């Protein structure tokens, strides 16, 4: 989601109808814009599939369709080709794609310059992958002398005044000293720098980093040259098409640019940009109705598509669609089905209540967990639900040791940098944070933990286990009580456990036990119980005896 802003005035100037706030908000939602703020200034959130909606012109274009004012695919009239751009051999291994166009007769003011810059920023941020895939330069073309050249230069290979600066800089100085240089130098290798110059060697831009100061837009700018460079032709051309449609909707005329490649191979051949040819796709009436659960006729479907600014012509039970070149989100006819639903309006559908019978059920795991929980609550324990994320330090401080921590590569906070492998540290943390609360404190948690397990069927070399842990903090808390409770809980679940001496350091010597699950004359260790050592209690700031147990209940999703 990207947030965009524009003034209500700019939108109204482009809309076919006057709308009040409520009507406008409703229509914006139908056009897939999430409304964040409505008033003199409008703020919208735009989803990643719709870069065409990142500008006020694109939003207005969509709304005019829904208002039935403009139908079908918008026609972009191109003027005659204006100039040429020669791509030089040297740039091909670095950043080979370039497209562009000339825009004439723009009436800029302070606000529309700001809006144009914002559209460019947002387009390159999302659609352009932070300028790596697509970078855009807008230039006042009055001082330029085409044809242009697109080449690669070295770190000291050119000197020009970058935007917002007053003195000349080399590419390496820009990368180190200019804020945009520092921000975007990661895209380049530090040795090769793309450069667009005109026939008099005046620098237009050093894409994808910075434009030259020479061609900066101002309120007196009437003609603009757009350069778009990148790694992917389709993405670059879509961005160009979006910008050309926007300028054209604001009353400017668009003149194509001829991009000439040194060798005319299949991938990189000479083109005249923008390419605004519509994408063609066929949609069957049957498919629409099957997916939507409707019985729409050809006419209704065609109308819905037209409202979405898609050209649609019926031929029998098939609709031939033409999708404007500024849309990026069509891969499959299902994408047209959504357009039909959008054109019809989601809230105009009559929701269909589920018709077929299916048997609902809780999982066996849930049934089991609910039993354990009921038993523990019956034994007077307060249930906790704590975070799965913790840190190695926190776990160790609370007596957990001798395990392989599963740590995050990219934690957002040191306190939450590991996945827990035991519940007990969290329970002890809770006790140490509640020394002011009324005693006795009897707490438990049933929760998921993660344990390393090579070649596990999940493919992650780990397994997710369900554990039960409990702690009693009170004057006379002891091993005898915790083990008895555990024994009774397990007996109620139809399982038998026995206890065997354990000498873990966190417990008082001789007051801890391994918990063994007995089954078919076999026994398996499933956990521990014991009285915490005074050293540990002191370490975590507790002045009350604490006895605990933790056992594994089952593996999550054991049977696949």
């Amino acid at each position, binding site marked *: 989601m990207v947030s965009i802003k524009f003034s209500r005035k700019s939108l109204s100037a482009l809309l076919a109808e006057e709308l009040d706030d409520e009507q406008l908000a409703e229509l914006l939602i139908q056009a897939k814009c999430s409304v964040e703020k409505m008033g003199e200034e409008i703020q919208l959130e735009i989803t990643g599939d719709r870069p065409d909606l990142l500008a006020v012109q694109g939003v207005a274009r969509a709304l005019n369709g829904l208002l039935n004012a403009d139908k079908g695919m918008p026609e972009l009239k191109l003027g005659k080709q204006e100039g040429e751009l020669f791509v030089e051999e040297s740039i091909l291994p670095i950043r080979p794609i370039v497209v562009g166009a000339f825009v004439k007769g723009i009436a800029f003011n302070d606000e529309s310059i700001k809006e144009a810059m914002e559209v460019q920023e947002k387009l390159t941020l999302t659609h352009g992958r932070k300028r790596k895939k697509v970078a855009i330069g807008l230039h006042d073309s009055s001082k330029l002398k085409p044809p242009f050249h697109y080449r690669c230069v070295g770190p000291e290979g050119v000197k020009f005044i970058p935007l917002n600066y007053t003195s000349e800089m080399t590419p390496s100085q820009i990368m180190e000293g200019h804020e945009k240089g520092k921000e975007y130098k990661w895209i380049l290798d530090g040795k090769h720098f793309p450069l667009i110059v005109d026939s008099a060697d005046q620098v237009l831009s050093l894409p994808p980093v910075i434009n030259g100061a020479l061609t900066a837009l101002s309120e007196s700018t009437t003609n603009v040259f757009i350069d778009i460079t990148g790694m992917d032709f389709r993405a670059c051309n879509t961005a160009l098409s979006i910008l050309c449609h926007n300028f054209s909707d604001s009353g400017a005329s668009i003149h194509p640019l001829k991009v000439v490649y040194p060798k005319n191979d299949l991938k990189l051949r000479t083109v005249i940009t923008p390419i605004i040819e519509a994408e063609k796709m066929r949609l069957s009436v049957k498919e629409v109705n099957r997916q939507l659960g409707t019985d729409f006729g050809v006419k209704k479907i065609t109308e819905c598509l037209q409202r979405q600014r898609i050209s649609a012509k019926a031929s029998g039970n098939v609709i031939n669609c033409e999708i404007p070149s500024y849309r990026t989100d069509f891969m499959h006819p299902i994408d047209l089905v959504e357009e039909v639903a959008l054109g019809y309006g989601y809230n105009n559908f009559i929701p269909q209540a589920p018709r077929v019978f299916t048997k609902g059920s809780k999982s066996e795991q849930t049934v089991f967990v609910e039993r354990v929980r009921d038993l523990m609550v019956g034994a007077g324990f307060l249930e906790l639900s704590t975070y799965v994320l913790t840190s190695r330090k926190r776990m160790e401080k609370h007596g957990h040791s001798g395990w392989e921590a599963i740590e995050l590569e990219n934690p*957002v906070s040191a306190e939450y940098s590991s996945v827990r492998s035991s519940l007990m540290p969290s329970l002890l943390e809770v006790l140490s944070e509640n020394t002011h609360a009324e005693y006795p404190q009897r707490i438990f948690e049933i929760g*998921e933990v993660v344990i390393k397990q090579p070649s596990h069927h999940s493919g992650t070399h780990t397994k997710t286990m369900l554990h039960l842990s409990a702690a009693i903090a009170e004057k006379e808390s002891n091993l005898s009580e915790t083990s008895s409770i555990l024994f009774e809980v397990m007996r109620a679940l139809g399982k038998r456990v026995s206890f065997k001496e354990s000498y873990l350091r966190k417990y008082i010597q001789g007051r801890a036990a391994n918990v063994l699950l007995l089954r078919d004359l076999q026994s398996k260790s499933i956990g521990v119980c014991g009285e915490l050592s005074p050293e540990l209690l002191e370490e975590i700031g507790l002045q009350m005896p604490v006895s605990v147990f933790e056992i594994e209940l089952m593996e999550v*999703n054991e049977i696949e």
Partner: protein
Amino acid sequence: MVNYNERLVLEALSKGLKRSADEIALALNVPKPTVMSIAESLKQEGFLELFDEKTVSFISLTGEGLEYYEKGLPEARLMQLMKASGNSLPVEEIPRKALLSQKEQGIALSWIVKSGAARISKDSQRKSILHLTTHSPFPSERALKFIGRARITKSALTGEEALGADLLLQRGLAEEQEQKKVMLKISIKGLESLKHSKEAGELSSLTPEMLRAGSWKGKKFKEYDLKTILFPVQLGRKHPYNSFVSTVREKLVGMGFREVHGHLLELEFWDMDALYMPQNHPAREIHDIFKIKDPRLGELPEEIFQKVREAHRHGGKTGSRGWDYEMSREVSASVILRSHDTVISVRELAKTLHPPDRVFNISRVFRPDEIDWKHFIEFNQFGGFVADENTSFRELLGTLKTFAEEVFQARKVKFAPSYFPFTEPSVELHAEIPGKGWAEVGGAGMFRPELLSAVGVDFPVIAWGLGVDRLVLDKLGYKDIRQLFTHDIELLRKSKMV
């Protein structure tokens, strides 16, 4: 005449020594306020004397203080950054480099200078440069770490930490509470009354021995004072959130959904690729994911991996254009923390299913996100799908409407267009919740053909996810999303069931 409770207190003082109210409370196993109210009434009747003795001062962190306890003080985070940047940094670069909010930047700069840990000078271009002069931790940071979530007596703090604690108090990051130590001493009248009540032979309670011997006959029992009869009782209780989850689960089961579970750790392949979210594309970034350091890479399910790769490349056998790129094995095999519950649905779909089928899961998911009152990096999702030859977008809307009515008690619903890379059409569910108003409560859509085909499904599937955490928060009267996972025992004891 003293009642039963009052007599217990007098008996505890019967040796004639001064004892503190805390001691008595501990000895009788009753809360201190109860002891105090009994003592007050005994004092009025002259049975005992009360003395105020020395006060004890406690210190604990405020809400803001706790936030810094988790994130680190702004100046400490700035110091970290400065260390990493070779001890000096132009002031104008701080906003861009440091992960500090605007407010925090001001705080950080002001305190790092005020504490003498750094100084500001101008360089040749008249730019302000910040120089770090020491690497030793701030006293306030040390005090912050020491106090943490606990309530500490002030005398436990010494040296640097005490110094730091004073600074925390000044800055409103910690607060101080004083507690008087109240001492009780029995009076002569009290001692006499005790003696007298023993002689009067009033019984304090009925015992099995009395019943066996019949010695209760003709005796009188001490009467209770109903004003002081209540003791705090610790009930065994289900966690309020889990209790709400059970209610929702019952409703989903009632609607014909069966429950499934998944793994906390997943392959990025299942979490993202299998959901037709292209690598290195904005559609992947509808949210971020946590990666695991070790095990870093897992084992890919080869057969499905190839099919999914084909779907990303050119749409597989669906007639789709596909994303037109080559999936990286290494990205797919990365081990991550489950970032959304949809991964459980797609894993379920990859098994052999027999439509019609309705499936749901309730799962903990993880996303690197800003931590504040309405966001945490861990939260719960309710999600699932309906697989049925005849299901449709209209049925999806009908299913969502039923959820809104059943789970959220909504009176009205609205549907808004939305975008998820794995569904088309996609929709957002908005519901008018009683006492709350309109809220977005879920996202849904029909799984894309590229996704279904790659996991071998040839019937339509509608998928949905509900966000209930904010609703539970309102119902429980909590103010912060993190309270759903609270460590506060008293809060859990006092929470109502919802």
